[in-house]
């Protein structure tokens, strides 16, 4: 069996995926850790965990692709690719036929137009502003004293979502405080916050043609409130795989796997290789 890994060092979290192939591709292990200040250590920790979980030695991994902002700090990687290319690839693997990928991470969000084989046709990203990203949501959660894992479900209960006019991650705090002072319910405030982010993201995504299927990836994909808000603003359903959070690392691992075997690579790009995740 050929084994390869992808390590996605994001601004907030580091994700890693181990893939093996014997004709059919399977996810052997995955790992998640906070990136923190030491990017290199986070990457090593995530990779170490992969090997432990799968019960293999580092040397069993034939190829490693690093992605994410910290990709150039991965000391053990064989190659680096951007998370844009990797997310497209990972999302296409998780959700075959996806033509648009909306990736929401800690510090940036992007929309990628994906070709029939998971290749990037076009992409847009937020620029120098964290509005529409996980950071915006985390700030709002913090001001309200609500755990980040609860904001999504709570936002779904909003009957009268408030209007959040600001797109600034810093100024949203004063907006929220003033709504709290007016006695608005936390779920309505959160409903408003989610919609504000969704609107911003969708207006960004409209710059690449939004075509179905739409898949969502990145850490924020775990937030059911955000998925619902996106669907509402888009007026279309959004596919979220259980592994959506790992799409970047998975894409990197798929590229790594290809590098181990050229015939495998060309089969993939001819569309002849149907992969499946174990989960």
């Amino acid at each position: 069996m050929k084994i390869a890994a992808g390590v996605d060092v994001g601004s907030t979290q580091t994700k890693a995926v181990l893939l093996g192939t014997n004709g059919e591709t399977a996810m052997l292990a995955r790992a998640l850790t906070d990136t923190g200040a030491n990017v290199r250590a986070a990457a090593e920790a995530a990779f170490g965990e992969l090997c432990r979980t799968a019960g293999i030695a580092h040397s069993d991994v034939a190829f490693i692709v690093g992605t994410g902002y910290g990709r150039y700090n991965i000391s053990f990687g064989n190659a680096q690719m951007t998370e844009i290319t990797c997310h497209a690839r990972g999302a296409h693997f998780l959700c075959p036929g996806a033509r648009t990928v909306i990736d929401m991470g800690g510090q940036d969000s992007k929309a990628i137009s994906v070709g029939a084989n998971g290749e990037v046709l076009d992409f847009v990203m937020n620029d120098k502003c964290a509005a529409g990203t996980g950071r915006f949501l985390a700030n709002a959660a913090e001001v309200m004293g609500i755990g980040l894992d609860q904001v999504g479900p709570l936002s779904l209960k909003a009957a009268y979502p408030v209007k959040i006019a600001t797109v600034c991650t810093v100024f949203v705090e004063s907006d929220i405080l003033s709504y709290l002072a007016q006695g608005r319910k936390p779920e309505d405030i959160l409903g408003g916050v989610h919609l504000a982010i969704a609107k911003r993201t969708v207006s960004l995504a409209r710059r690449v043609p939004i075509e179905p299927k739409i898949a969502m990836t990145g850490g924020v994909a775990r937030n059911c409130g955000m998925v619902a808000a996106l669907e509402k603003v888009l007026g279309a359903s959004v596919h979220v795989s259980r592994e959506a959070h790992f799409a970047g690392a998975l894409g990197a691992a798929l590229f790594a796997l290809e590098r181990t075997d050229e015939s495998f690579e060309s089969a993939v790009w001819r569309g002849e290789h149907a992969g499946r995740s174990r989960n």
Partner: protein
Amino acid sequence: MSVQATEYRGSIHQQQKELMLQWYAALDRAAGNAAEQPVVSMMVSGNCVELLEGFGAVPLYPEVNALQLAIRHQSLDPILLAEELGYAADNCAYVKADIGAYLKGITPAGGRLPKPTLVLCNFVGCNTYLKWFEHTADLTGAPLYVLDVPFLRSEEPGEADIAYVVRQLKEVVARLESLTGRKFDYDRFQQATAYSAESEGLWSGIKHLAQRSPSPFDAYFDAITLMGPLYVYRARSEGVQFFRDALRELEQKPVSAEDEKFRLVVEGPPPYPYFRAFRDMFARWKACAVASTYSTVGGLWEFGFRHDPEKPFESVARHMLAQNVTNRNYLQRYEQIGHYLRAWDADGLIIHFVKSCRLFSAGQGDMREYFSRMGVPTLYIESDLEDPRYFSEAQTRNRLDAFFESLEHMKRTGARRMPLAAPQPSPLRVL
């Protein structure tokens, strides 16, 4: 993928450096003896350096000074000073750097900059010029002449437009005669237009070298090196000699197919405070800009226009009215880019949005969409040409890397080649 930064450094780079130092030395001498050396402050866009030759006057380009400061990482302090004085955060940072540097006494080459004999606002396209030159005139106490060049509203400038500009050029001549006490030397002016025509032909030849594959010339980064002499010296024999040497050197430059992986068209000026880092982001991928709109700010010579010694005033007017990218409208810019993509056989388009430059950056979102819809791989990135605070190296590099990854994939799989050969539909027609 192995990536390696490459940069061509030939003898023309040394010549360019010497010419530009000579220019700064002339400006420094003028600062010491204004009567001996007239100096005219002027914009690069559609500049009329030929006219100055009739007085033996030296041009002073505030944009060139500003960008030199930025390349040398000296632009932020003057910008901050200008902001302290009340210039808004979204003012063009060229203006802020220039004004701030003047007040701080910073000059790009370390020498003195003279008080201009005349501040000549050759107002083409950008309305920031007006305010900028009013401020310069106010600060330096130099007289101001605003050349009102009508925006190009059709394919060609009308006779009335040309006559209107020629009349003003003659007023500028009269004004300079009284300011310098010198008689305008018409023969020298005519000779200057002849030299310009020659330089322009050679420059156009250089730009066309980029149609070769692989290209021996990067029409963005290398072009910028040649643009200083183009604006300062094209109307002089030194300029002709320089461009002759440059064309010869580039024609003979050995390039191998491995040196060029991607061919691009670039729209917008570069982020000068991070010029080298930005250039390396392209070089790592062996990406060559085969054409750029920025290199046509001063003039659109690769499309055939030349100054004309038979009609010197009219040709200067035509150049200002129609033969520089700044005085042309958006649809004409689309046509220009589309032509580059086809005739220079490019793989994609990179649009650099410059925060300072509202006038030329507004609408680039639509431009991106327009070319993407035509099937051209198009990347849109944002930063600034002068203010280092708006450049994020990691973000810019990430976008460029992703763009090149997707181009690489397309090349490898033969997935998509631009379906650009078809003639453009009617929206491009300019009324």
